[in-house]
């Protein structure tokens, strides 16, 4: 039966309208946003799980400190974008010479430190020179590629490298590039004098770090007056604090508990460069046999692990998706316990007992799952949970371990595979040499795409050696209350740039 066009149009419109209404009323978890405009004097309460041990940005490493202070309180010439790239900060623009060796940075003007002193090119020179000459500062090794730093005028700094380095700009987004006032005597362990959109108001150790808006900031003013970073390491307590209204944003939420927050919060999952690595000590028998190592990897059911973890993706090589050089290496290893047993028999290593050293900051289900999976191929896994400090001492510093389970959060840390003293360094000299040379070439390469290609090749060489199993790369579960805008959702374990956040109550 023919219908007049207008009727059909009306019907279609009616259906569409109905669909829209239904979608708006859907019982799904999206909470309603408050109406109104952002409150410029609001306090933003953020819940996090890992607290910095010390505020000294020059001598304490660890993601927790960078997460809290870099880009919020301290700034460098450049900053990290959420997708892993580089964007301007204290340098409004920069030029790189064709041979990749000379970087000319044009500095922002009107920048002052929190104590009122002016920011000049001399401060940049002093900071970079200090870091690259004092071997006790974080970032010392990264800046050895610098040949000289000079202030060509008050607003321009020229950095000359000994050779082109693809990662140099990225390095400046980290603690190596933080610019401090050159004649400052602030005690870095307990206070901070930076140039960022927030100043450090207080550190209530064991509880929280409070940031206050810097009204003299050179750039766009921060969206909120105060940010309280509350450190709640227990998963249930963190969710509890969210549910009772004392937190506006929660990061690092445990997947099992995330459903409790839906309805009250918008729950997101963001990519990070967190790499959960089960490292094999190639210097310890029988792990020196590549067949044994491959067998261990074949025994691991990555899908089952992700089933338990919740938020994350499988990872089969040392470079995660957010870093340059990422390639999906899923084809290099599969879940095949039978083949694993065959390899172990071949290597004469059936019925092994191996010990896994794991920091007790991770949930115990990893150990339980691995114990069960290795039981299937005849390997008895002993688990030794240690404090992180003991892990650092035994595994990291002294390489005294058989298997190690840890999360490496740093972006672009492939360079660790070129360090012969690193706790998981390749034992095969040829492979190691190849990785080193490919990496060096990648760094010298001025074309980013070509560089990434070389990195990918190096990653493949590493993966083929089976020095470790990359269990997965974690996605950070971030829960955001309605009315909170512009909160970062990716790379949140290493950076938490809260300057653009606004709160509408």
């Amino acid at each position, binding site marked *: 039966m023919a219908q007049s066009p207008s009727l059909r149009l009306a019907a279609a419109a009616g259906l569409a309208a109905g669909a829209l209404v239904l979608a708006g009323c859907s019982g799904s978890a999206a909470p309603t946003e408050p109406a109104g405009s952002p409150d410029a004097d609001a306090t933003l309460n953020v819940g996090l799980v890992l607290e910095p*041990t*010390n505020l000294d940005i020059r*001598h*304490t*490493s*660890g993601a927790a400190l960078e997460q809290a202070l870099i880009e919020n309180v301290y700034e460098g010439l450049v900053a990290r974008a959420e997708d892993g790239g580089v964007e301007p900060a204290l340098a409004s623009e920069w030029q790189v010479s064709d041979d990749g060796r000379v970087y000319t940075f044009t500095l922002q003007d009107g920048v002052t430190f929190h104590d009122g002193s002016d920011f000049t090119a001399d401060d940049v020179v002093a900071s970079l020179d200090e870091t690259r000459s004092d*071997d*006790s*500062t*974080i970032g*010392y*090794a990264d800046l050895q590629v610098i040949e000289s730093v000079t202030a060509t005028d008050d607003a321009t700094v020229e950095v000359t490298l000994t050779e082109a380095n693809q990662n140099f700009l990225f390095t400046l987004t980290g603690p190596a590039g933080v610019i401090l006032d050159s004649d400052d005597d602030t005690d870095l*362990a*307990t206070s901070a004098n930076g140039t960022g959109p927030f100043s450090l108001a207080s550190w209530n*150790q*064991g*509880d*929280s770090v409070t940031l206050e808006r810097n009204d003299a900031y050179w750039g766009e003013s921060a969206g909120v007056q105060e940010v309280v970073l*509350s450190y*709640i390491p*227990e998963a*249930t*307590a963190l969710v*509890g*604090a969210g549910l*009772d209204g*004392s937190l506006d944003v929660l990061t690092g939420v445990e997947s099992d508990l995330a459903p409790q927050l839906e309805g009250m919060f918008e729950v997101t999952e963001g990519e990070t460069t967190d790499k959960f690595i089960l490292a094999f000590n190639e210097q310890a028998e029988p792990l020196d046999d590549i067949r044994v190592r491959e067998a261990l990897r074949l025994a691991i059911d990555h899908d089952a692990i992700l089933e338990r973890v919740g938020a994350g993706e499988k990872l089969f090589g040392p470079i995660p998706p957010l870093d340059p050089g990422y390639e999906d290496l899923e084809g290099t290893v599969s879940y095949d316990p039978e083949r694993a047993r065959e390899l172990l028999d071949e290597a004469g290593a059936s019925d092994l007992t191996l010990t896994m050293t794991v920091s*007790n900051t991770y949930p115990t289900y990893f150990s339980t799952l691995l114990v069960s999976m290795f039981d299937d191929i005849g390997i008895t896994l002993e688990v030794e949970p*240690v*404090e*992180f*400090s*003991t892990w*650092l*001492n*035994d595994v*990291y*510093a002294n390489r005294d371990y058989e298997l190690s389970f840890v999360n*490496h959060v740093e972006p672009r840390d492939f360079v660790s595979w070129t360090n012969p003293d690193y706790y998981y360094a390749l034992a095969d000299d040829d492979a190691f040499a190849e990785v080193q040379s490919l990496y060096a070439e990648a760094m010298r390469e001025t074309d980013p795409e070509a560089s990434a290609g070389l990195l990918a090749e190096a990653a493949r060489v590493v993966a083929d050696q089976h020095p470790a199993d990359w269990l997965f790369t974690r996605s950070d579960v971030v829960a955001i209350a309605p009315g909170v805008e512009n909160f970062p959702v990716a790379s949140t374990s290493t950076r938490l740039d809260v300057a653009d956040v606004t709160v509408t109550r």
Partner: protein
Amino acid sequence: MLRYAATRILFLALGLLVASALIFWALRILPGDVAQMIAGTEGTPAQVERIRADLGLDRPLAVQYAEWIGGVFTGDLGTSMLTGASVAAQLAAKAQVTIPLGAFSLLIALAFALPLGVVSAVRHRSRTGAAIGVVSQLLAAVPVVWAGLMLVVLFAVVLGWLPAQGFPRTGWQNPADAIRALILPSITIGIVEGAMLMRFVRSATLQALGEDFVRTGAAKGLTRTQSLVRHGLPAVGLSVITVLGIQIAGIIVGAVVIEQVFTLPGIGRMLVTDVGARDLTMVQGELLVLTGFVLVTGFVVDLAHHAIDPRQREHR
């Protein structure tokens, strides 16, 4: 009395000295390196050495011990190796949670144990007495961890009346919230400790019931209840004081576990974390304070006991 007090003071001093020495020397054999932990995963050996020198870890042990003990007398327990915060200040801050927790627990334990203990003794042949006896046996067998978790399941998860974990970040600024956070933890410790105390009160009351002075009271024409109240209860009270020292030790121990269950930022939880983090100065200070508290309590209880009832020659 004075001689007794002097002896006990000597014991106390000796105990504290032995405790401090044991704690200090034991902790210095720790594996793991605080300096390495501060330097972190990116730390180079040079950085680690610098930190170690800064913290004074490279000096002889005896020197470090002497310095620590000297500091104790001036109230300076040193600074945390990891954060530089003052140990004494941290202890004072965390005590804000642990001391009220302990106090509430003790009150609940007494309120629970005294009446029930006496009643169950007086009626030990009846069903009430037997029932109370059974319940107390059951409660005394419950691990304090589980008691806490079960109460959380009941009151926080199922009923939603009380917070499952945590203590308000603003501390005691909002007393109502702070007390709300301490209710479940104190009840947990109070009931488990109270169950043990109750059985002691029951024993003591039963003993009193069989004693001469109750019969004397009966001869004087007092009812059993009246003679019990006038003559027996003071004796029961004395016995309770005897065991109070042990009870308080038990509450401290319970607090260490319960603060973990309810994630309360108290001394106990700080101790567990610091032991793991190898923060030697913090752990030293915490263990010394906790052990010292137990020793001092024992000392006070001994004196009180002796003062109230000089007939007791056998200590405890």
